[in-house]
């Protein structure tokens, strides 16, 4: 086996972030050529010198395994950080979509955004509750819309703020941990997760879906548009990683 063949096999067997693999290959090549030069200086011919240098270095399988084992704890830490960032993006998106829904209500009307879909049967108990909270509402449907708007603002924006504070603290704590590169597949995961969510939410808006506790065509659409924006952010990150250096 020549040094070139050894490097090819090491590349095939290596797993992990591209930058780590590239670095290992560059260091391996310099090491093998230094070792081969030392053998040649000692009187060994060039072909035998390469073989000896490779034998002393260890098999590509053993080196790739050792490299993967050494990366594992850092890979787990990097995944935890990526997960936290993804959750932060999701929580921020929930807050942003609530504000977007407010804006949409100004433009398209409160009923379009928060109103009950026509034909949905709600219980008398729910109606009584909504009319008690919003006594000025002229009908049960109108009271349901007002209640939906109020709940959305409180729960979505409030939840997003609390979540972001918790994630901010977690990020500061994790910053003190050993450095780790974000795994290459994280943007693909983000794109898939937020892309599928965006598709589902936009379809829910198109169908004006009613789920007990969740309704409002404009709200579904605002949620879907926000998830789509986050998915596009991950798509840009993915494209920049795939672009050759």
């Amino acid at each position, binding site marked *: 086996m020549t040094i070139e063949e050894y490097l090819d096999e090491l590349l095939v067997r290596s797993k992990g972030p591209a930058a780590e693999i590239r670095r*290992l290959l560059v260091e391996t090549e310099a*090491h093998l050529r230094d*070792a081969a030069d030392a053998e040649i200086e000692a009187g060994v011919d060039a072909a035998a010198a390469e073989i000896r240098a490779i034998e002393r270095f*260890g098999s590509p399988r053993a*080196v790739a395994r050792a490299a993967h084992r050494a990366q594992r704890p850092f890979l787990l830490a990097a995944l935890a950080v990526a997960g936290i960032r993804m959750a932060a993006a999701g929580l921020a998106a929930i807050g942003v979509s609530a504000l977007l829904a407010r804006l949409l209500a100004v433009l398209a009307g409160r009923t379009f955004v928060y109103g009950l879909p026509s034909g949905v049967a709600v219980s008398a108990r729910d109606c009584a509750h909504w009319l008690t909270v919003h006594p000025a509402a002229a009908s049960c449907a109108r009271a349901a819309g007002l209640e939906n708007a109020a709940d959305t603002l409180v729960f979505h924006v409030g939840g997003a703020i609390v979540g972001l504070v918790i994630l901010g603290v977690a990020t500061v704590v994790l910053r003190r941990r050993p450095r780790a590169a974000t795994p290459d597949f994280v943007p693909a995961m983000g794109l898939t997760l937020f892309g599928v969510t965006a598709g589902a939410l936009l379809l829910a808006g198109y169908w004006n879906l009613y789920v007990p506790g969740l309704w409002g065509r404009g709200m579904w659409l605002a949620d879907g548009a926000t998830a789509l924006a986050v998915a596009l952010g991950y798509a840009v990150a993915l494209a920049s990683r795939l672009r050759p250096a």
Partner: protein
Amino acid sequence: MGADRAKGHLDTLILSVLSMGPGHGYEVIAELRRRSDGAFDMPEGTIYPSLHRLEKQGLLESDWDTHDGRRRRVYRLTAQGATALAVATTEWRRFSVSMNAVLGVAG
């Protein structure tokens, strides 16, 4: 002590070699072999994952260096690495004193 047993202490051995001054992987492994009089003759490729891990832990830092048209990563000990080496050395001394006492060997 053979190369197999030395593997369990590879991090300490690397830190010890680099405490004498910066060096790249080939130099580190050559110095390990020289200092151990050939006893620590382990597969040379296994040193790089250890160097990378120690750097991520903040015990080493490194930079690229090009010499004779060959790129090499040169590693040096950080202050944190020097502290870790001091701790590991103390622990090793304690351990070897205890082993010697049990085995009845003069320290």
